[in-house]
Structures are given as structure tokens and as C-alpha cells.
């Protein structure tokens, strides 16, 4: 007995200590490596873009070719409108189908929906743009923020649906049973107990989907189309930041290049800002020790 306990107290061999340090170093090195491109992009954007950001850039519409000044105010607001429409489409539909998949979808039809969602997730965004073009633009005979929102909304659905499903499945069955045992009906349990328990993860899924489509350019090319002027009517062609960045970046003008960098910086700040805002509002009122 004594002998056994003595042997376990012997200091670790050099080989094991080296292996331990090696593994820790490897984990640290890879996580730093992951951060490098992210930080590099952001720093580069700030360096290139911050010089062109001024009051005019944030409040004025683009100037005609050859004229200096002007801004992207219409594109910033346009992106906001399009993303609002896409969120109104993508989040409810995504959460709804996620609920179906998790709570009722243990069957053939559920498998079909799951498979379709995964395929949709892999469809190139420009193809979804074409779908929105033929579904909304062609019948209406004009480009619009609405069609852009539909395209981006369709792109959000599979991400939100699968995230919601995963998060709901992580809620222990004991929580559902507790609710059933209180005489709470299944739909009420799902909405007020299960979904609520999973809400933090579901919100993260929605934010991921939002951030992903916020930078999409291709599906907007022939849906929202872009616009050089102010437009707040969702039924009209509308400017969007990614589109404006694209147009300016491929232009031959030095001034527009600078504005494209500035637009990219604003776009990233918009995404980070809205994700942070949602996080802060939803984490407020969380309780001590809440799981």
C-alpha cells in the first residue's frame, strides 16, 4: 500500500513534462494563428478606410462620376432596410422549422427537411439571387429592396433552422417532462419553456446567419440592384453597402477606392454593432446562476 502511494507521488518524467508543455504550446499557437487573419483584416481596413470616413460620407449620397466628395448614406440605410426584411423572413421561418425538426421531426419528412436545409446552406449565394430574381423581380418587373431581402432571408433560413434544432435538442427532456407534469400543453411548453431554455443558443444562431448575409453581394446584384439616390421605399431599387463597395472597388477612380475601403469598414462595424447590441439586450435580465 505504502509503496504504491509512494510511486504515484514520484515527479513526472522529463518526457511527460515535455509532452505536456508541447501540447499546451501547440493549442496556444493554433489559437493565435486563428486570430491573426481576423485582426490583420480589421487593422488593414481601419488603416485604409478610416481616412475616408467623415460626416459627408455618413450623410450624403454618391456624387456623379468625376466629382469629389459624396458618401454612402443611402447604401448604409439601404443595407439596413434589406437586412431588416431578410431577418423578418429568415428568423421566424428558420426558428419555426427548427422547432418542427427538434420537437416533431423524428420522421421521414423531418429527415427530408433536414437534408434540404443542408443543401440550401451549400447553394452558392448567386443562385439564390437568381431564385429571388425570378420569384420577385420578374413578376414585379422591377428591382427592389424587397427582392434583396427575400434573397438574403432565404439564405438565413437553413442556418437559423439547424441552429435552433441543435439548441432545442440540447435542452434535457426532464425540462419538457416537468412542464407536461404541470399540465402545460405541448405547444406552450415548446414556446415558453423549451425555446426559452435554449434562447441564448438560438439567438447566437440568428446572429451568425445575420452576420453571414450582411456581407453578401452576389444575391443583391440583380435583386436590390443598387441606387445612386436616396430611397426608403422597399419596393424600389435600393443601394446596399456590399454592392456599393463592389462598384467602387472595380472603378478606376482613386477617390472611389478610398470610399470602398471606408464602406467595408462601416459594414464590419455595422455587423459587429448589431450583434453586440442584440447580445447586450438579451443578456440583460439574466439571472444569477441561470444555466
Amino acid at each position, binding site marked *: 500500500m505504502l509503496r504504491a502511494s509512494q510511486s504515484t507521488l514520484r515527479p513526472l518524467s522529463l518526457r511527460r513534462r515535455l509532452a505536456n508543455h508541447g501540447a499546451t504550446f501547440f493549442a496556444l499557437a493554433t489559437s493565435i494563428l486563428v486570430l491573426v487573419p481576423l485582426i490583420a483584416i480589421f487593422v488593414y481596413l481601419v488603416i485604409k478606410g478610416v481616412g475616408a470616413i467623415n460626416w459627408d460620407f455618413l450623410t450624403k449620397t454618391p456624387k456623379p462620376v468625376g466629382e469629389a466628395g459624396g458618401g454612402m448614406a443611402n447604401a448604409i440605410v439601404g443595407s439596413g432596410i434589406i437586412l431588416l426584411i431578410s431577418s423578418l423572413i429568415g428568423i421566424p421561418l428558420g426558428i419555426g422549422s427548427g422547432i418542427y425538426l427538434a420537437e416533431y421531426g423524428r420522421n421521414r419528412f423531418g429527415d427530408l427537411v433536414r437534408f434540404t436545409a443542408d443543401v440550401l446552406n451549400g447553394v452558392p449565394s448567386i443562385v439564390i439571387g437568381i431564385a429571388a430574381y425570378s420569384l420577385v423581380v420578374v413578376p414585379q418587373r422591377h428591382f427592389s429592396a424587397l427582392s434583396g431581402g427575400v434573397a438574403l432571408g432565404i439564405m438565413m433560413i437553413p442556418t437559423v433552422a439547424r441552429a435552433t434544432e441543435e439548441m432545442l435538442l440540447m435542452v434535457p427532456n426532464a425540462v419538457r417532462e416537468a412542464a407536461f407534469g*404541470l399540465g402545460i400543453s405541448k405547444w406552450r411548453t415548446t414556446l415558453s419553456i423549451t425555446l426559452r431554455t435554449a434562447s441564448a443558443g438560438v439567438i447566437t444562431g440568428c446572429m451568425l446567419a445575420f452576420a453571414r448575409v450582411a456581407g453578401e453581394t452576389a444575391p443583391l446584384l440583380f435583386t436590390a440592384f443598387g441606387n445612386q439616390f436616396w430611397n426608403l421605399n422597399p419596393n424600389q431599387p435600393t443601394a446596399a453597402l456590399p454592392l456599393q463597395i463592389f462598384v467602387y472597388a472595380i472603378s478606376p477612380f482613386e477617390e472611389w477606392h478610398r470610399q470602398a475601403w471606408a464602406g467595408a469598414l462601416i459594414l464590419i462595424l455595422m455587423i459587429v454593432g448589431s450583434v453586440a447590441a442584440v447580445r447586450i439586450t438579451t443578456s440583460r435580465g439574466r439571472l444569477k446562476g441561470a*444555466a
Partner: protein
Amino acid sequence: MGVGIEVRGLNAWYGKNLSLKSIDMTMPANHVTAVIGPSGCGKSTFVRCLNRMHETIPEARAEGTVRVGEMDVYGSGADPVEVRRRIGMVFQKPNPFPTMSIYGNVAAGLKLNGFRNRRQMDQLVERSLRLAALWDEVKDHLHKKSGASLSGGQQQRLCIARALAVEPEVLLMDEPASALDPISTSKIEELIFQLKQHYTVVIVTHNMQQAARVAELTGFFLMGSLIEFDKTEKIFTAPADKRTEDYVTGRFG
């Protein structure tokens, strides 16, 4: 006030597997009835059939007559949701709603059943927490702390309070103390003793001493059948059936 429970010819299946075989049992009002037996004997299935929780498991079903007071639990017009509201249940592992406050947990059954009167709700929450002997420990942070932040024993008493808040007529407890330490266990047992003034209690337990301590009547289950059902004292001191005797004397199980 509690009401009596009458079970006649109750059969329960998991898929094709018959796991309860024509159970007949009468549990008087305002008494504690213990259900004992070895693992897999059907005792949990039995109590889960009393409030139609059994059928929430895929492929599970039950047949027979269960009367709780005037209510015909498996009658053609019976709504399982309504049945469960009137028959409270406490589970083996404490299962508070993790994102809700202590108050929110106790009030959940009321709120989600459409109860709106705020003042009455406050009173019901306090009454339930007092009945569950938890009020003094949590009254200062009802709204601030999550139900999940309590200790295991407190969580189980919170779950009891939650079940009591919807004012059931019967309380089913499926091994309510098996995940708890001895001190919490004795608190729950004391509580069960108090609760029978207001409710009819059916408790499943692995622990024979516990059955002997809290229950007036005890039923012994073996392989899906009710072997013997009698006064607790009789079951433990002079059982009529050889198998009951073997079990309570620790010869198997």
C-alpha cells in the same frame, strides 16, 4: 383536500413490451402510498400511468381504468393536459426550469395555464414555497436567483412547490429523494408527512426504510405485476407472499 385513486385492470406497454400487467389498486385519500420493488419492476411506469405521462414517451401506451376522485383519467372525454394539471408530479432528478427565477419556476404552471391575477399569484407562490418548506431559505431572492442556482435538495423542494402551486388533488413522486443527500432526504420525508393533510401522495421508492417511514400503505411490484398491497407495517413485518418477504428481507433486488 386530496381524493382517492382507484386503478382497475391497468396495462401498459413500451412498443410491444407489456410492462404493467393488469394492476388493481385503491389508494385512499389523504394517505401516503409507497410503491416499492426492484429496478425494472414497473413502479415508475405505474405512477406515470396515473397522470398519463407514460404516453408522452414514443410508442408507449396504457389501457385500463384509473379514477382520481371523480375524474376518469382514461375516459373518452379526458384531456391528458387537464389530467396532468390536476395530478401533480415530482421527478427523480430535480428539474427546475433553468432560465427562470425561483418565483418564475413556482409560478410557471399558473402563468402558462393562463392565470393572470398578480396578487393571487404572489399568494399562491408563497403558500406553495411554505408548504414545500423552502420559503425561509429563498424569500429574499425570489426574483433575483435562478432555480438552477439552488442546491440539489432545495431544487427538489422547489419542484415540489412548483407542482403544488397549480393546486393538484394528488401528488405523484417518482423516487423524489434518490438523488439527494441524507439531510435533504429527511427534509423531503418530513415534507411528505405534512403534505398528506392536503393531498393524496403516491411515492415510488427504492429505499425500503423510506417507505416504512413515510407511507401508511405499501404496494410491492415485481416484473410488472402488483404482488402485494397492504398496510406498510404488514408488508414489512408479516408479508403474505413469499416473494415480498424475500424482497423486504433483502434476499434479492
